[in-house]
């Protein structure tokens, strides 16, 4: 059988851009050297902290949506989440990391966040 292949689109540039975004989510290999090893480790740790923070936030929003939190509980939760977010901003600034860098490509499972 000869494969009579069709590759068809009317938006070539748009697709190249999106495909490159997926592939650039993470470098394929960790570029570890004495100059950037600290940043690399910070990136890994902050990615995991960010994941946990987002999960906590999501769970909190679900509880609000379900109407199971009192005004006082919302206040306490808001304070905690606000402090956590501010601390993360501070750490990202210290290590020169951007939001989009705090992600992990899990291969067939897709991106962590």
């Amino acid at each position, binding site marked *: *059988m000869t494969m009579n292949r069709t590759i068809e689109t009317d938006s070539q540039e748009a697709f190249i851009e999106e495909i490159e975004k*997926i592939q650039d989510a993470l470098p394929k290999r960790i570029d570890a050297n004495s100059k950037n090893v600290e940043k690399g480790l910070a990136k890994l740790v902050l990615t995991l902290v960010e994941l946990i923070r987002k999960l906590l936030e999501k769970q909190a929003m679900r509880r609000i949506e379900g109407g199971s939190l009192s005004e006082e509980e919302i206040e306490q939760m808001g304070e905690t989440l606000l402090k956590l977010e501010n601390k993360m901003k501070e750490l990202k600034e210290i290590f020169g990391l951007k939001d989009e860098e705090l992600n992990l490509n899990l291969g067939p499972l897709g991106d962590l966040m």
Partner: protein
Amino acid sequence: MKIYAYGIIDSNSGMDEPLRGLGEASVYNIPYRDIGIIVGAYGHTPLLSDEAKEKTDTYILEHERIVERLTEGFTVLPMRFLTVFNTKEDLLSMAELYYEDFKNNLARLHNKVEFGMKVIWPADTIKQRVVDVYHKTKHNVSISTESPAKTFVKEKFQEHIIEKEFQEEANRCVIAVDDHFNKIACEKKLKKLQTENLLLNASYLVDKDRQNDFKQAFEQLKNTPGDLKFLFSGPWPCYNFVTLTKKPSSVDYFNTEDMLGRLLAQQGFAQERNSV
């Protein structure tokens, strides 16, 4: 000299005609029981860096050319690009370990091809629409803004509801696209929203004799009014449908499609491309 593996085939016989693969090396079959591993000598070390990008791109196309050529005569389980073994013994150990998986996959993928479908949607417009609806809707949950903490929670809650609606809209859209192909495909793999704009990145496994039905389904979809953009490609060797029950310990031997897709996308679309 190391051994470069292109794929597993359902035959342990020699090749009908000589083939040249990466670096012009001869391509041949190493038999294992009733199947074979198509390989070539490998003495190169192309890196996936910018400097070596051009050479690597050539190698990806060479890999694809060999796999595609094999599909003309055999059922093929394509190996991942740059799957290299140190010795023939390593290769045969791999064949021994995965023999049952290979046999099952060869039977499952016999007479099948793969099609790819990527869909871009106008994420910004959709999100704006969701935001507008959110602000016009009366909500059951009301959070006051009497403190910074509550104001923060209120903003986060809005984001949460808007994101939820955005995801639900994406689900509806994916189902609408997938409905066109669902009855024709034997199997499918759908990845939703890998980026905000890339609504769907799908691979469909299709019987060879239903390829035209599949293409017609795409024509129908393409002519449906709407603001979706499509990238349709195929038939391909079954890159995305080889499934192993035993997970490779350190290497993923399969799946070259994404890398190849990016490369072909850059080389030009809307073309009929015949295999060698």
